[in-house]
């Protein structure tokens, strides 16, 4: 028997379609409808995959990395000394900084004798890998759990975050110090 290429099932799942006439019971579609409804009804009693956002919020991953923050210590002084290790470790080369020397009357502002006069993160380049946080020897830069990664904007320059957007607000530093003292 010679088999032509059309008759070979390449996937192995070829089925002959029958053109059999439906019986009376089948032509009422009653059984088929009940069968289909059963599948639908069964799903009512299953565990739901959605949640009632925003009343309910899903749990964050413990390694979630949000927007950066330059920390202050308990006395409200900036931790960053502009050592440049975050910029060095940054694979996206998003961080630039300019160091300056602390003046005698700025001791309450900066922890070490050197501080970052300019600290900029280009959020268009940042990939939120967290290597800057790992490299930081002074516990200064942290990736927060803030859900807003980068707010939308129109100008490219608005995505370059300076110290005004990155440094921890003074109220937060005070609150942290209070919490630490309370514990």
């Amino acid at each position, binding site marked *: 028997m010679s088999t032509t290429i059309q008759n070979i099932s390449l996937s192995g799942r070829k089925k002959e379609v029958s053109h059999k006439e439906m019986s009376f019971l089948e032509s009422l579609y009653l059984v088929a409808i009940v069968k289909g409804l059963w599948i639908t009804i069964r799903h009512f009693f299953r565990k739901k995959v959605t949640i009632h956002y925003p009343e309910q919020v899903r749990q964050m991953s413990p390694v979630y990395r949000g927007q950066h923050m330059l920390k202050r210590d308990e006395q*409200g002084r*900036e931790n960053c*000394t*502009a*050592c*440049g*290790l975050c*910029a*060095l470790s940054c694979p996206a080369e998003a961080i*630039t900084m*300019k*160091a*300056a*020397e602390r003046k005698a009357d*700025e001791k*309450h*502002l*900066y922890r*070490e*004798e*050197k501080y970052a*006069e*300019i600290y*900029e993160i*280009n959020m268009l380049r940042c990939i939120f890998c967290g290597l800057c946080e790992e490299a930081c*020897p*002074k516990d200064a830069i942290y990736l927060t759990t803030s859900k807003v990664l980068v707010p939308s904007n129109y100008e*490219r*320059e608005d995505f*370059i975050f*300076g*110290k*005004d957007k990155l*440094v921890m607000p*003074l109220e937060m530093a005070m609150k942290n110090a209070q919490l630490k003292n309370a514990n």
Partner: protein
Amino acid sequence: MKVTIDGQSIEVEPGTTILQAARMIGGELVPPAMCYYSKLKGSGGKCRCCLVEVSKGSEADPRPMPKLMASCVTGCMDGMEVNSKSSPRVEEARKSVTEFLLINHPLDCPVCDQAGECDLQNLSFEHGNPKSRFIEEKRTFEPEDIGPNIQLHMNRCILCQRCVQVADQLTDNRVHGVMDRGDHANISTCISKAIDNEFSGNMIDVCPVGALTDKTFRFKSRVWFNKPYNAHRDCDKCCGKTTVWMFGGEIQRVTGRKDVYHEVEEFICNGCRFDHKNVEDWTIEGPREFEKDSVINQNNYTQKLEKVEIATEKLILEGRDKDHKKISMAEIDYNEKIDGNLIDSKKNG
């Protein structure tokens, strides 16, 4: 005379020290040196970093030396056999020496301008303990101003006395030396007199740590963000051959050319070092080579970089001109933000 160091033999002249012989062989067996400086007479023998084990004194007297020897001041003997890196005793001793050197050394590498080209940093990376066992308070000194060009951080000093030898041998009337004794010993200019000799800037280059740093470069940049170029100029006081450290098109620092052991090839004058920071003053020969594992290698470019020209519209390749300004910090006047407002540091604090 034949000397064998870590199994490698070399013929040397009489009067060569073990460290010099090891440097002739080169490679991993070269002992680290914090105080020895081949260009300075009488240096060495102070830091004890270069300790080696002499397992055979000489052909005539083959007994091993009972104690570890400082290789920078121990002369070679014929048939001497030395163990440097291969000896666990030496490794242990270097580890202890490193720990002692770090006892009074502050942990301020993030602030220090020497970080990235610091011999003590390299030494402790190789031999040091990641944890300090020292719980007492570190010795501190009052900050002292020793002139407009050189910054002295006495806290960081390890008392190698290289700078004193520079003052002794390069400058005619020495105005700076070691004061006091023991734990109080410190480098000073005696009566806080400014060092104004024409070659005093070489103290910065010979200092293995960040105790003497360039005031004109203070906090300007980190070492690894600068690119070193060989450059020269006509100078009537010194050879004029230097390394210029550039950030973009700006010369931020001028130093002597340092070899693999971080010793300058030729000493340069203060005029070249501190006063000539314009690119027009220098003939730039080309980029310097540096060690493969150097932190400077982060911005690696050992070949001359030439801009690739592609026949495409400029906008597609480089973007709009107005977007350039903040990407390159060189263009920025640091006293002004892009929006034209002066930075008010108190606003954030």
